[in-house]
């Protein structure tokens, strides 16, 4: 359609940005990418894919071609300027792309040019007519609908005449559109401009940026649609992953809260716990199980998974800390025959160490797994253990978001920490929070289970003892004693301790009262005794008054009488000697 092309080139930029939503798209087959672009790349146009070395540009192009050839019956042409044809086949083979087979079936042609700058000496004017001729020939021969040129900027280095290369590339892009093929041109990321040689100015329809960052030894890949003329598209940076089956772009960056809330309850596999939660978990809800090491978090997850498989539903178990074999064996020892469910294909166990993958990659892999397995129940075991970086919360949020948006009932276990700050952060995202706690008393270590919260559900505030037996999990009532520990979380324990302290104080007061009463009694006793004494004293005084004084008066009167009788001196003086 040469006429259309010409017209578009001269239109004003404003007019071009709004041709309407219905422009035809060419599916890339890249999971997530077609979703964020509303169907893929602009059909019949050229898309620029920009990225540094190792960003995944080549694989992006390859997957686009292989999808066309394998699924859509659209043959493709790959022109590579960086790798040999055998290397292309080998690299593509690692993603399960059978390049050789597709070539044999005339669905794909690979032209590999190895451009050695040292070989080429420029002696005057030139053009890239051979490339045009070769492409025209190949497109005509196999009826190609898709073309990938990877990485075209190599030509700038090889043919040092930049103005000529620039003009020829511009001509090539126009020519590609005239052929009606959907094309991808890859280019190196530039420092100041988007691409090293600014070729984005020749590709106006669609520009995709691939980014590969390594931060603290964790690699993260992101994709962004920088420009997409005439089409709405997600503008965020989307994490993507190079998985064993090709690229996976994760079209989730924000929490959307428009989940359909189910009224259906599903069993946790523990009748008593279901009862505590007023009949089980809501289907599609999320549960956080936190607890210290060895409190039975994983076992609780296994119970949920086991129950799902027993109902004939598919379940996904993601292990962050142990191998599937180890997990299955351990769970077998408490009565869960998970190997059987793996055998029936209902249970998928995936062991992943997030630190080895990078958080974004990890998220992308999880997304792919959810797509593959289509589970009704998922357990992420130990999801936020280890290093807890600043964006871990948001990553966690996206994982939850991803699972919720797929209607997957999700149980997440995490290691409890002293300050509970992580649990609180994560629990805000969750519908239900179960806490498991070890309690040591009387020389034995017991596990206790608490329902801290459960949205939209009346739930028991009671504590249950959580017993791991050969036959699975038992929940039994616990005795809430004055020690207080068995009543739960730190706060609750504190309350219990306060209650204990109050009790102690009461006893003290009673004792003191008793003491005081006793001392009153004693005092009263003493008082009585003293009163008796006083009374005795008074009586004595009385007696003295009445008896002794009278006697004394009697004696004096006698003496007076006697002396008058004897005619004695009135009163003997001390100095006066005796006669």
């Amino acid at each position: 359609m040469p006429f259309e092309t010409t017209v578009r080139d001269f239109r004003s930029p404003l007019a071009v940005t709004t041709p309407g939503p219905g422009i035809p798209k060419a599916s890339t087959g890249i999971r997530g990418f077609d979703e964020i672009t509303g169907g893929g790349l602009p059909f019949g146009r050229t898309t620029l894919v920009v990225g540094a070395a190792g960003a995944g540009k080549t694989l992006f192009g390859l997957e686009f071609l292989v999808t066309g050839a394998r699924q859509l019956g659209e043959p493709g042409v790959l022109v590579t300027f960086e790798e040999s044809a055998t290397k292309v086949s080998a690299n593509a083979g690692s993603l399960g792309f059978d390049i050789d087979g597709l070539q044999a079936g005339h669905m794909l042609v690979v032209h590999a040019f190895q451009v050695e700058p040292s070989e080429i000496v420029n002696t005057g004017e030139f053009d890239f007519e051979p490339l045009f001729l070769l492409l025209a020939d190949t497109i005509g021969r196999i009826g190609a609908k898709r073309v990938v040129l990877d990485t075209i900027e190599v030509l700038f280095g090889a043919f040092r005449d930049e103005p000529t290369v620039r003009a020829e590339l511009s001509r090539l892009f126009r020519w590609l559109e005239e052929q009606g093929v959907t094309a991808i041109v890859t280019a190196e990321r530039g420092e100041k401009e988007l691409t090293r040689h600014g070729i984005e100015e020749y590709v106006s329809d669609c520009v995709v940026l691939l980014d590969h960052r390594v931060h603290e030894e964790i690699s993260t890949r992101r994709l962004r649609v920088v420009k997409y003329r005439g089409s709405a598209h997600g503008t965020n940076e989307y994490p993507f992953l190079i998985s064993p089956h090709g690229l996976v772009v994760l079209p989730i960056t924000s929490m959307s809260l428009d989940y359909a809330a189910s009224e259906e309850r599903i069993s946790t596999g523990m009748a008593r716990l279901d009862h505590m939660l007023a009949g089980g978990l809501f289907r599609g809800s999320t549960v956080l199980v936190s607890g210290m090491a060895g409190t039975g978090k994983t076992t609780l997850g296994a119970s949920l998974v086991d129950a799902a498989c027993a109902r004939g539903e598919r379940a996904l178990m993601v292990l962050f800390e142990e191998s599937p074999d180890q997990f299955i064996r351990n769970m077998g020892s408490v009565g869960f025959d998970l190997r059987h469910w793996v055998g029936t294909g209902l249970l998928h166990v995936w062991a992943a160490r997030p630190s080895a993958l990078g958080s974004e990659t990890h998220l992308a892999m999880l997304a792919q797994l959810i797509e593959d397995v289509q589970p009704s129940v998922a357990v992420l075991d130990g999801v936020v253990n280890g290093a807890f970086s600043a964006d871990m919360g948001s990553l966690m949020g996206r994982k939850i978001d991803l699972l919720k948006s797929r209607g997957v009932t999700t149980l997440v276990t995490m290691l409890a920490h002293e300050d509970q700050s992580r649990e609180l952060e994560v629990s805000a995202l969750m519908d239900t929070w179960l806490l498991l706690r070890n309690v040591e008393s009387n020389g034995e270590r017991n596990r206790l289970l608490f329902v801290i919260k459960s949205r939209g559900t009346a739930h028991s505030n009671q504590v249950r003892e959580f017993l791991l037996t050969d036959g699975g999990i038992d929940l039994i009532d616990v005795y809430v004693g004055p020690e207080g520990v068995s009543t739960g979380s730190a706060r609750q324990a504190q309350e219990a301790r306060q209650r204990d302290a109050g009790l102690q104080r009461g006893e003290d007061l009673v004792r003191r009262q008793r003491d005081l009463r006793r001392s009153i009694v004693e005092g009263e006793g003493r008082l009585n005794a003293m009163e008796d004494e006083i009374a005795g004293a008074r009586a004595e005084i009385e007696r003295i008054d009445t008896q002794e004084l009278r006697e004394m008066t009697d004696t004096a009167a006698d003496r007076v009488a006697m002396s008058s009788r004897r005619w004695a001196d009135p009163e003997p003086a001390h100095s006066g000697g005796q006669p």
Partner: protein
Amino acid sequence: MSGLGTAGANGLAQATPIGHWELRLYVTGRSPKCLLAVENLRRVCEQYLAGQYNIEVVDLLENPRLAAEDQILAVPTLVRKLPEPIRKIVGDLSDVDRLLVGLQLRSQKTGPV
């Protein structure tokens, strides 16, 4: 593919390298650049390699797939097949100095002729 070229005339030229020169010039039809290249090449060969060279002109219009096989991205491209090693020289060969350096008929030094 159409080989237009042939050998030069008399025995010894003043140029130092002795032996047979096998040259192949890739073109796309009769574009001005390509015609100019053929012309330039014949002139330089007569001057420096008289009697020791053979020129084969390959038209990629007739067989585009040769571009991939022979790794030719641009035209005109002159390939020195002999003496080895193979050298590739791109352009219409107007810059004779660079052409001579490229063919290793002259050691690398700058400045126009």
